[in-house]
């Protein structure tokens, strides 16, 4: 578990340094995600499973991902004025754009997946 945490934190650190140093248009953790994904793809090729500790640590972090949203979300208390002043714009924007995003993604996937005859997912 400690090895996995060390790997994640180091990837984040390198990603952060790279994102700021090279002025990349990506947040540091996303660069870290890409670096780790690229690294894993090279080291663990087809048929080679990831170490169990790496998978279980990722699972326990991602399994509790919702909790990690809470501290930032509580920050809403500092934004209540701005939010209530723009309640209609925010609510309409979120409802309609989410509806549009769901419809477009689902429809494009459905059309392309049908004609390209994808292998069964499960």
């Amino acid at each position, binding site marked *: 578990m400690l090895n996995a945490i060390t790997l994640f934190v180091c990837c984040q650190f390198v990603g952060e340094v790279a994102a700021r140093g090279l002025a990349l248009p990506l947040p540091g953790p996303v660069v870290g995600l890409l670096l*780790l994904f690229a690294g894993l793809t090279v080291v663990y090729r087809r048929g080679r499973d990831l170490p169990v500790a790496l998978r279980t*640590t990722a699972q326990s*972090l991602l399994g509790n991902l*919702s909790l990690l949203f809470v501290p930032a*979300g509580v920050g809403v208390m500092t934004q209540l004025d701005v939010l209530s002043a723009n309640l209609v714009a925010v609510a309409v924007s*979120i409802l309609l*754009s989410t509806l549009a995003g769901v*419809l477009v993604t689902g429809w494009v996937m459905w059309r392309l997946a049908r004609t390209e005859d994808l292998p069964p997912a499960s």
Partner: protein
Amino acid sequence: MTQLFHLWVYLETTPLLGLAATLCVWRLAMAITAWAGGHALAHPVPIAITILVVLLWATGTPYSAYFQGAQYIHFLLGPATVALAIPMHANLARIRASAGAIVPAILAGSVTAAVSAILIARLLGAPREIVLSLAPKSVTTPIAMGIAEQIGGNPSLAAVFVLLTGIVAGLIAVPVLRLIGVRDWRAIGLAAGTAGHGLATARILTMSETAGAFGGLAIGLNGVITAILVPLLATLLVK
């Protein structure tokens, strides 16, 4: 009473209070969600946030004092984002096999959601900070907060918008796609993950494992696509 007050003053200066409050309220919110039968509107995140905001407001604790402790939980968002590489790697074969359909679908949905969110908010007169915080709302919180900060939005607002978006997407994905004739679980899962990240995916997963797998894939891929595209769209659409 004075002793109690001294104890309170001491606790307020340590990070323990914010940390303990967040974890305990989270357990409570999980219990409330389980009691409500896992209904989408009874998601533990908005419940926990509401309880914590009321607690802080009632005790007159400023957010900065709370965050002194809660930052240790908040910090884990970074490593958790990096950890998304693990499920993506586990789906590598599936990504390769269906990249021809998955990538255009996520790209189209990602651009649609971001552009429509920006334009609708601008049309309804929302200020620049709100518009820029709405733009990355379809991706998972750590990525959305990073993008919002980078393009001049407000990370705290972005986190709230991300949560609301995830709840909406989880509620509407299945019924609205059925309405236009899409019953393919791969498409439903991909749509939920692209438009509504982990919150929507968690809900779809309870209906179909295939949908859950494609939702998980969409979270990672859309996070990367959005991180590249939204800063460009924001410069184009928001002056």
